[in-house]
């Protein structure tokens, strides 16, 4: 076996070898997301920039699709990462898993190339099948939808069969049930109807029940595993917390779906149901903060992977503030009437996707890196530790800066465009031209560049951290001793 510190795939089990492939593509797509986000941001400031070449709609579509796909790749990779550890046996169907990885990656590449080069098509079904479905977040054409379903079914089979053949831990059980829901829900978005109310009703089933329910439970599983790995928290504790989180998350999030049904034609009872249950959605996120901070405290912050734990803590707080607080701020219909479809939503979207999901996938990048380098030391006194700290700082500050800038723009928009100008097109442009809005867009761009700098540093760090380290990873106190 190679010396500690050397990147050697012999250090990984079969599922983990596959996981690092997914992580690599995820990181590349994260980069693409940032590039196209910056381009779209510039267009707010200089509308002629790339006009007619890469219009805002194209940049924005690639920006949000890269987001969805890099997080999915991150989740699939993370699931493969913990699979053999949890189930206690090698992944069942690993060859299929590898084949699917290449098919999936190729399909994503084709979809992106078509987005960039073909962009749009004639107003008929052929465009929806081949180019672009034109529905935010799930723009992938129908052929790719079918491919995605096939790929994730194969992935699901691998996970479920491995747990079934090996052993079902609590994390494993929750993960398998959650994946069934996650993939079943995707099917709800795969049809065409001329009725836009019906269209958006089911579209939200996919978007909301992914982002505010099944993805949250999935990261709950990942956080449980991450806390066991980094801090050595006992399984009984993390799994009990996981069940509490699932109960609270699904208990609030499933009917919290109703906060998307205020204004799309659906009946007025959704005001009450959506308002009430979505107002409860922050509670499980508070639980996750308590859980992670309490566990860190009881272990005196002694952990074997400083960057991974730092990102897990960033996840706990980012999830609470970005998804919980920012979501709660405009979830009640009385305020949502004025904020729905303004930069307020963009502020929440950025904070929530980053805080809840990007952070935890990055934590898994670091868990993977440590083991890939032969379970090398990643605690105090690590050579070149400034890089991960600065990456963490720049990414988080850059994000918070963007979020605040968009929030100010959103306040201005909901006041001037909506409340005063009565939501007319003239009102829209009056608000877009207001100095408070324009300043918000400038600051968003500035913090976007800061975020991008953090990303560059993150990539550099992932390529180098632990390379010159020879010490083995810090060992946890025996489970149950504490």
């Amino acid at each position: 076996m190679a010396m500690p510190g050397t990147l050697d795939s012999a250090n990984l089990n079969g599922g983990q070898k596959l996981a690092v492939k997914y992580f690599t593509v995820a990181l590349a797509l994260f980069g693409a997301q940032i590039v196209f986000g910056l381009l779209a941001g510039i267009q707010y400031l200089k509308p002629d920039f790339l006009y007619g070449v890469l219009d805002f709609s194209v940049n924005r579509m690639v920006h949000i699709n890269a987001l969805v796909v890099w997080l999915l790749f991150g989740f699939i990779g993370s699931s493969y990462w913990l699979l053999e550890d949890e189930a206690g046996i090698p992944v069942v169907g690993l060859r299929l898993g590898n084949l699917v990885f290449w098919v999936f990656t190729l399909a994503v590449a084709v979809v992106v190339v078509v987005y960039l080069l073909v962009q749009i098509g004639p107003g008929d079904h052929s465009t929806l099948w081949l180019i672009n479905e034109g529905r935010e977040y799930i723009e992938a054409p129908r052929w790719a939808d079918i491919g995605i379903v096939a790929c994730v079914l194969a992935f699901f089979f691998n996970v479920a069969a491995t747990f079934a053949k090996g052993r079902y831990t609590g994390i494993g059980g929750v993960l398998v049930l959650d994946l069934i829901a996650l993939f079943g829900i995707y099917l709800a978005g795969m049809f065409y109807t001329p009725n836009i109310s019906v269209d958006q009703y089911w579209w939200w089933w996919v978007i909301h029940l992914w982002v505010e329910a099944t993805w949250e439970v999935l990261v709950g599983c990942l956080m449980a595993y991450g806390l066991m790995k980094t801090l050595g928290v006992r399984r009984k504790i993390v799994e009990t917390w996981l069940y509490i989180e699932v109960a609270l998350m699904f208990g609030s999030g499933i009917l919290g779906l109703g906060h998307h049904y205020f204004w799309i034609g659906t009946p007025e009872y959704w005001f009450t149901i959506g308002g009430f249950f979505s107002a409860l959605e922050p509670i499980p996120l508070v639980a996750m903060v308590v859980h992670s901070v309490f566990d860190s405290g009881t272990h005196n912050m002694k952990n074997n992977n400083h960057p991974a734990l730092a990102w897990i803590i960033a996840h706990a707080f980012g999830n609470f503030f970005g998804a919980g607080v920012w979501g709660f701020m405009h979830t009640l219909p009385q305020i949502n009437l004025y904020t729905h479809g303004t930069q307020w939503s963009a502020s929440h979207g950025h904070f929530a996707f980053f805080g809840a999901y990007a952070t935890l996938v990055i934590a898994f990048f670091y868990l993977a890196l440590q083991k890939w380098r032969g379970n090398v030391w990643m605690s105090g006194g690590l050579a070149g530790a400034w890089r991960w700290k600065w990456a963490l700082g720049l990414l988080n500050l850059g994000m918070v800066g963007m979020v605040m800038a968009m929030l100010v723009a959103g306040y201005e928009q909901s006041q001037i465009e909506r409340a005063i100008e009565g939501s007319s097109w003239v009102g829209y442009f009056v608000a877009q031209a207001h100095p408070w809005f324009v300043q918000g867009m400038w600051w968003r761009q500035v913090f976007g560049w800061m975020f991008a700098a953090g990303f560059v540093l993150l990539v550099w760090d992932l390529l180098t951290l632990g390379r010159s380290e020879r010490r083995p990873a810090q060992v946890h106190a025996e489970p149950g001793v504490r």
Partner: protein
Amino acid sequence: MSHTEWWASESFWRKTAIWVTAGSFVALIFLTLDSMSAITAGSTRVPAYSVINHRIDYVFDEKRNFQVPVIGVEEPLFGKTLTEAEAEALVSRGKLTTQAKNCMNCHTLLGNGAYYAPDLTKAWLDPSWGSKEVREQMMVDFLMNPQDRLHNGLGRRMPNLGITEDEARATVAFLKWMASIDTNGFPANFTPIDQSDPPAESGSPTQQQGG
């Protein structure tokens, strides 16, 4: 540590998680069945596609305390009364066009989408079209050649998306139909284009605003 209270036990929370999830999901299924019947085209909340044969307005309703769509006198789109099947085909073509041209990644529809361009929920009723007599043709012309038309003082312009005349007319039909959906008062405090007939005096009661 030796004894765990029932309320802190793993098995209690596992069972709770299962029951809460199952219960919520069953509730969602029932609500979905009810909502689907309420928003099928042809219901009171989401009118039949042939509503495009009529004038559509957006008027403050005292009882509900917000603006609601009001379907008025016959006012066929492009001067041609359509059957229900013809209207559905036209609106559907328009909806397909909005998807194929990726409208939702600049605009919002029913408030959902991107925020680079105005909301289209009540595009049909927006006062920017000037008068109801020229509106239909202006919308078609704009959709087909938006790049060299006046937009706003920001320099933001809709690109030419290669929309054909048929697609443009279908899109206008879709937008007119969408304006008839009862969106619980979204957008609020909206002043629709004046659709009163020429002899009527200005400031007719149907144009009265709430708030």
